[in-house]
């Protein structure tokens, strides 16, 4: 059901862990939904120098966290903000339709972490899309309560 890339990132997840004194932390998801992602960013001169995650969730959730942290590393905040859920899913060589929400969660986690950093810095927050509204395809199942 999963692409080789997803399986690779699931079995060998990159960047697992926490960053002590992270510059930005994004916590998204809900245990009731079956997935929670915590994203930790280290930011220097507007550039993400390190990214880590901890995730409770299915294979796609773990692989999406892994890929998302890979994708934002080394990027400026502006660039990182543009890393969409689609970009995550594509980098994973696709996700099953019912798993698209995992990539959405990863995007949200990055956004939350960046805004947490901006808040700390006293910078104006960037506008986050509504959580779980990224679902342009009508494909991503989202956990609604």
């Amino acid at each position: 059901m999963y692409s080789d890339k997803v399986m690779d990132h699931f079995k060998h997840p990159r960047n697992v862990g926490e960053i002590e004194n992270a510059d930005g932390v994004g916590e998204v998801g809900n245990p009731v939904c079956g997935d929670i992602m915590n994203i930790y960013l280290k930011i220097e001169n507007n550039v993400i120098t390190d990214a880590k995650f901890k995730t409770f969730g299915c294979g796609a959730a773990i692989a999406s966290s892994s890929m998302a942290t890979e994708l934002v590393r080394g990027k400026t905040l502006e660039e990182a903000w543009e890393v969409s859920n689609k970009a995550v899913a594509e980098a994973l060589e696709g996700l099953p339709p019912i798993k698209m929400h995992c990539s959405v969660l990863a995007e949200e986690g990055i956004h939350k972490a960046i805004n947490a950093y901006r808040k700390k810095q006293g910078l104006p927050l960037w506008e986050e899309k509504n959580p779980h509204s990224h679902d342009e395809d009508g494909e991503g199942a989202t956990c609604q309560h």
Partner: protein
Amino acid sequence: MSMGEKRTVYMDHSATTYVRKDVLDAMIPYFTEHFGNPSSIYHLAGDSKKAIDTARAQAAKALGAEPDEVYFTSCGSESDNWAIKGIAYANGKKGNHIITTKIEHHAVIHTCEYLAKEGFEITYLPVDKYGLVDPTELERAITDKTILITIMYANNEIGTIEPIAELGAIARKHRIPFHTDAVQAIGNVPIDVKAQNIDLLSLSAHKFYGPKGVGVLYIRKGTKIDNLIHGGGQERRRRAGTENIAGIVGLGKAIELATADIEGHNKRIRALRDRLLSGIMAKIPHAYLNGHPEKRLPGNINISFEFIEGESMLLWLDDEGICASTGSACTSGSLEPSHVLLATGLPVEISHGSLRLTLGDANTDADVDFVLEELPKVVSRLREMSPLYKGKKEGGCNVQ
């Protein structure tokens, strides 16, 4: 069971079983040689007819039924649908109330939901934390509009075995037809439809080393029921469709073998299961057994591991060659995790971390050792990357 190069440990026998060799051998001649349509009158068809009669007698014997109370169907789901809709439509004038439980298989629940849209009233009985239905609750739920009680014999997820004889006696007392989905029970529990007051019973061959695509609905003589599949005169005019002879032969042989020595079989499987279960409990903290400690299917283990999610567990286990299943919604594409686990009162977030291991005939001590070796690694690997686990250790975001 070993397959090819890589070790495969199949512990998902409640999902389906392989076909036993002796069952397949019995089936083979009916594909190419004795293939005649039993409705025909020539000798070639006589072989098919005889084979079906034999299988019918085998199934009847396994249930304590008469052969002419056994109707072959295409699967457990068809049997459930037929029993429920057939009784509902045939008795719609008497009443419109059906009693079932919250932990039935979807083949029962979704059929009831369909009937609810058509104006039937459905009562879903609750279960206790072990998944047991309380007979006094059943009796309380009966009204003068009740036309059917349908309660599963043994639950497919948590393995809990219901007090069927007691429930059947209550149904009989109130003269309400009593159906039981015994798909998971065959070969694991001695069944006697007469002693247990069962009026209709569903079973499916692929759960006891028979082929997929063939099942039985037992219908007690005199039960008023509509057909589900209309057409030719097969199955004494009650279930149309040219008979799946090879499949029926396979079912007959498989049920005979599965019920020949239930106690002996259970003893072996239960010993393996109990060693596996206690091993897991000893090695992995924050683990909870779902279902009843004793009143459960001999091969069934269902455990929830806190802080992790089921699908990711399955993927890792599969990577090691271990086939298992979970009640997490993440495998199914539905939003809700297992309705069975929720009905036992398990919190949603914990039910996401459930693992079902169901042992069967081909499992060995070596299989148990292997799972005891690999499963703890998988659980701790996933917990290591779980933010909930960290929360737990630091007393933070505690799920409970």
